[in-house]
C-alpha cells in the first residue's frame, strides 16, 4: 500500500469545553478526489483548519509522507504543499490576477518582472483550463474566477494536497461544473484533492472515496462505488433521536398571521411562499447556503425583498426597515449573538431593555433604573436566566443564558411573530430543551414562531410544519406527521423536490 501524502491519526481537537473533533482519522493518497461529507457542525471546518495548520490538534498526529509533522500556520502547510480554497475566495481585490497568483512566491527574485509574471500566470491559468486575463484587477472578477485565481496560486507552489471547502456553494451550475473539471484534472496529475460539498450529486460525479463524519467523529470511508445517496444521508444524520426532543401537539389556530407569496430578493432567493398561523411553529430547514437567514432578514426589513407579497393579519404590507417590522409585531432573534444580537460589554438589564427603551424612561427621558431591574427580574424568573445580578456584562454569561437574554429583549417588545434564527446553536443540551420549551410556551400563549435551524432533531421536535430550502429555492413544506430526518435531508440536498 502506498504511503498517504497527508494523514490525520486519531486527531482530537477541543475548544474549551466543546469537543470539535474526537479521534479523527483520514488518509489522503496522491491522485484521489476524497469527498468529506457531514451535517453542519459535524467538524469539517475544524478538520480543514488542522490540515492547513491554522489549529493544532489537542491530541493525535498529522503525518506528511508517513512522518509526523507540526504544521506551523498556513505558511508551514503551504511549504509542505498543502493548500486550501474556501467558499469565500481569499483574493486581494486591489491587485491584478498575476500578482494575486504569485503574491507569496519566493522564487521569483526581488524585482517584479511584469512580463515574466504574466507569462507564468497564463501558463497556470491554461493548466486549469480557464480563460482569464492576468492583467485584470481581482476586484472585478466573478466568484468563480476568483476561485480559479486561488487554485492557480496553490498550483504556483507545487501543490500536493488541495483542500476545497464547499467551493461550489455560491457558484452557478455551469461554473460549478468547471470547478469540478479542474479538480478532476488536478487529481489526474497526482494531487490529492479533498472535496467538501453539500451537493451530493457533485460528490457522485467527482469523488473516488467518501468519508462521512458526524459529531466530530469518523463514521466511514468507502470507495464511491459502494456508497448510495440514501446510505450516505443515513450515516450523516445517524444519531438516535434523543429524548430531549419531544414534539408536543400542535397549537395552530386557523387564523393566518403572516402570509408570504413568491417572495424573492434578486440574486439571493426566490419563490418563497408560506403561511404562518397563530399558535404555530414553522421551521425552516436547509444546509449552509440555503439562504434561509436572508428570507428572515427580508421579513424583518433588514434586506427588504425585491419581489413577492407579504400579508400581515390579512393586510398587504411592505416591510422596509426593522422599525416597521417591530411596529407590526415581528421580532428577529439573530443567529449571530455577537454581531447582531447582544451588546456584549453592556449589563444584562441594559440588554434586556435595549429594544424597548421607551418603556423604562421617565417623561423627561431619564432612565428608571428600578423599572429596568424589575423587568429584568421578571424575565430572570420566567426564562430561568442564571446570573449573579442584573449588572453583569452579558458577555460573561454562558451561551445558553445569552440566548435567553436575547429572547427576553425581544419578548419585551411583545411580538406576535418571533423569528428565531438558529436558536440553540452552540448551547448545551439542557439549555436547548429550555429554549424549546420557551418557544412552545410562546406559541401556546397565542404567538407564532418561525424557527430557522440546521439541527434536524430540533426541527422535528419543534416544527408543526417544516419548510425546506436549498440554494435560495423553496423545496417543499413537510407537515410534522410526514417528516423524518431522511426526508428533510433529501429535500435539502436536492435529491427530490416535494410538490409545493
Amino acid at each position, binding site marked *: 500500500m502506498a504511503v498517504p501524502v497527508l494523514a490525520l491519526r486519531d486527531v482530537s481537537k477541543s475548544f474549551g469545553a466543546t469537543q470539535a473533533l474526537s479521534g479523527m482519522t483520514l488518509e489522503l493518497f496522491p491522485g484521489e478526489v476524497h469527498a468529506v461529507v457531514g451535517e453542519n457542525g459535524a467538524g469539517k471546518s475544524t478538520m480543514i483548519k488542522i490540515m492547513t495548520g491554522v489549529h493544532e490538534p489537542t491530541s493525535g498526529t498529522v503525518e506528511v509522507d508517513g512522518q509526523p509533522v507540526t504544521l506551523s500556520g498556513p*505558511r508551514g502547510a*503551504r511549504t509542505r504543499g498543502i493548500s486550501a480554497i474556501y467558499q469565500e475566495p*481569499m483574493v*486581494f481585490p486591489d491587485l491584478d490576477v498575476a500578482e494575486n497568483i504569485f503574491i507569496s512566491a519566493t522564487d521569483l527574485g526581488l524585482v*517584479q518582472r511584469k512580463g515574466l509574471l504574466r507569462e507564468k500566470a497564463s501558463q497556470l491559468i491554461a493548466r486549469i*483550463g480557464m480563460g482569464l486575463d492576468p492583467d485584470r484587477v481581482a476586484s472585478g472578477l466573478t466568484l468563480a474566477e476568483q476561485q480559479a485565481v486561488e487554485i492557480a496560486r496553490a498550483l504556483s507552489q507545487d501543490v500536493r494536497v488541495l483542500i476545497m471547502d464547499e467551493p461550489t456553494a455560491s457558484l452557478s451550475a455551469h461554473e460549478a461544473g*468547471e470547478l469540478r473539471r479542474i479538480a478532476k*484534472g488536478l487529481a489526474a496529475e497526482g494531487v490529492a484533492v479533498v472535496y467538501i460539498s453539500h451537493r451530493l450529486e457533485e460528490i457522485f460525479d467527482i469523488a473516488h472515496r467518501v468519508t462521512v463524519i458526524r459529531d466530530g467523529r469518523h463514521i466511514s470511508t468507502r470507495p464511491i462505488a459502494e456508497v448510495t445517496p440514501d446510505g450516505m444521508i443515513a450515516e450523516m444524520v445517524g444519531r438516535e433521536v434523543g429524548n430531549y426532543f419531544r414534539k408536543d401537539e400542535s397549537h395552530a389556530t386557523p387564523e393566518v398571521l403572516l402570509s408570504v407569496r413568491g417572495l424573492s430578493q434578486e440574486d439571493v432567493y426566490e419563490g418563497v411562499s408560506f403561511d404562518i398561523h397563530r399558535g404555530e411553529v414553522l421551521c425552516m430547514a436547509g444546509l449552509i447556503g440555503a439562504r434561509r437567514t436572508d428570507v428572515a432578514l427580508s421579513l424583518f426589513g433588514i434586506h427588504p425583498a425585491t419581489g413577492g407579497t407579504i400579508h400581515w393579519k390579512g393586510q398587504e404590507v411592505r416591510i422596509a426597515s426593522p422599525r416597521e417590522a417591530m411596529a407590526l409585531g415581528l421580532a428577529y432573534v439573530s443567529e449571530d449573538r455577537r454581531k447582531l444580537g447582544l451588546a456584549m460589554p453592556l449589563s444584562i438589564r441594559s440588554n434586556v431593555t435595549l429594544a424597548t427603551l421607551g418603556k423604562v424612561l421617565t417623561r423627561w427621558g431619564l432612565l428608571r433604573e428600578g423599572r429596568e431591574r424589575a423587568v429584568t427580574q421578571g424575565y430572570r424568573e420566567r426564562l430561568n436566566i442564571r446570573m449573579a445580578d442584573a449588572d453583569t456584562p452579558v458577555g460573561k454569561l454562558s451561551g445558553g443564558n445569552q440566548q435567553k437574554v436575547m429572547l427576553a429583549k425581544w419578548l419585551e417588545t411583545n411580538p406576535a411573530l418571533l423569528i428565531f434564527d438558529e436558536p440553540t446553536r452552540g448551547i448545551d443540551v439542557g439549555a436547548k430543551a429550555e429554549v424549546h420549551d420557551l418557544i412552545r410556551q410562546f406559541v401556546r400563549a397565542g404567538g407564532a414562531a418561525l424557527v430557522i435551524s440546521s439541527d434536524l432533531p430540533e426541527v422535528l421536535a419543534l416544527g408543526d410544519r417544516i419548510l425546506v430550502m436549498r440554494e435560495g429555492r423553496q423545496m417543499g413544506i413537510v407537515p410534522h406527521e410526514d417528516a423524518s430526518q431522511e426526508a428533510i435531508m433529501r429535500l435539502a440536498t436536492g435529491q427530490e423536490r416535494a410538490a409545493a
Partner: protein
Amino acid sequence: MTRLSPGALRILALLLVLVLVAAFFATQIDNYLNARLFNRISSSVAIVALIATGQTLVILTRNIDLSLGSVVGFVAYATGAIVSAAPEIHPVLLALAALAIGAGFGLLNGLLVAYAGIPSIITTLAAMAIYRSALVEFSGAQSITTEDLPQWLVDFPNTQLFTLAGVQFRAAFVAAVVIVILVHLALLRLRPARALYAVGSNPEAAEMAGIDARRTVLAAFVAAGALAGLAGLFFLARFGNITVVAGLGFELKSIAAAVLGGVSINGGSGSVIGALIGAVLVDLIENSLVRWELVSEFWREAVLGFLILSAVSADALLMRRLTRLRIRREKAAPAPTPKEATS
C-alpha cells in the same frame, strides 16, 4: 491593452484637480501664477512629501502613524545638535543619522502595532506625545538657531539645481521628488513591497497565502520613520531655527496629503505619487488661501477641511460608480469560455 489602469486614471484626475485649483485662484488673486508661488510651495512640499510618502506606506497596510510629526521635530533637533557639535561631519553621514533615528522610532511603533497587537491609532497617538516630550527633555527647551549650522546645510534647500521655463528647481525639492519616485518604483516593482498592498487589501487572505503580515507592517512603520527622519533633516536645513514645536501638525498634514492623493484609508490601494500630488495640492490651497481676500484667516482651516471632505466623498462615489459599471459590464459580457486543459 491601451486601457488606463485605475491608478493611472486617478493620478490624471488629481493633476486635473491641481490645474483647476490653480486656475481658480489665478482668477481670484492678482499676479498669482509666478515663480515665487512655485518656490514657496516647492520648498514646503520637499518636507511634506517625504512624510506623506511614509504615511502612505503605513496606510497601505491599514494602519496610521500619528507620531510622524513628532519624529520630524525630534530628528530635526537631534541632527541640528549633531551638526553643531561636529560641524565637520560628512553630509551623507548626517543624512544616515537622520534616517537611522527616524527608523528607530518607526521600529518602536511597528513592534507595538505588529507584534504586541496594539491598534496603530492608539500606539502612535501615545508615541506622538512621548516623542514630543522626549524632544523637550533632550533639548532642555533650548532652540537650535541658524548660527549653529554649517553653511552647506543652510544653503542646501535654496541651491538652484536647474531652471526650467523660468522656474527654479531647488535641491531639497528635487531630492524629495527623486526619493518619492524611487519609493514609487520600489512599491511597483519590488516583490516584497507588493506584500504591503496584499496585507492592506485582505489581511486574512494574506495570512492564508503565507505572507508574514507582522513583518510587513513592521517594515512599513520603519520605512515611514526613516522617511520622517529625512524630512526632519530637510526641516532643519530649511528653517534653521528648531524649537520644541518643530514638526507639530505634520502628521495630520501628511494624512491629508495621502488621502487627497487617493490613498485608501482602508488600506490596500493608493500610490506615493498620488500622495506627492496630494501634498502639492494641500500646500497650494494653504498658500493660496492666505492670499485670497475673500476668505478670512479664521476660515482658512475650515476651507481646507471642507476640501478634504469633498475630495474623499467624490472619490468614494466615483469608485462605487466605477465598480458598479464594471460589474454590469462583466454581467453583460459572455462568461469566460473555458479552454481545453493543455496538460
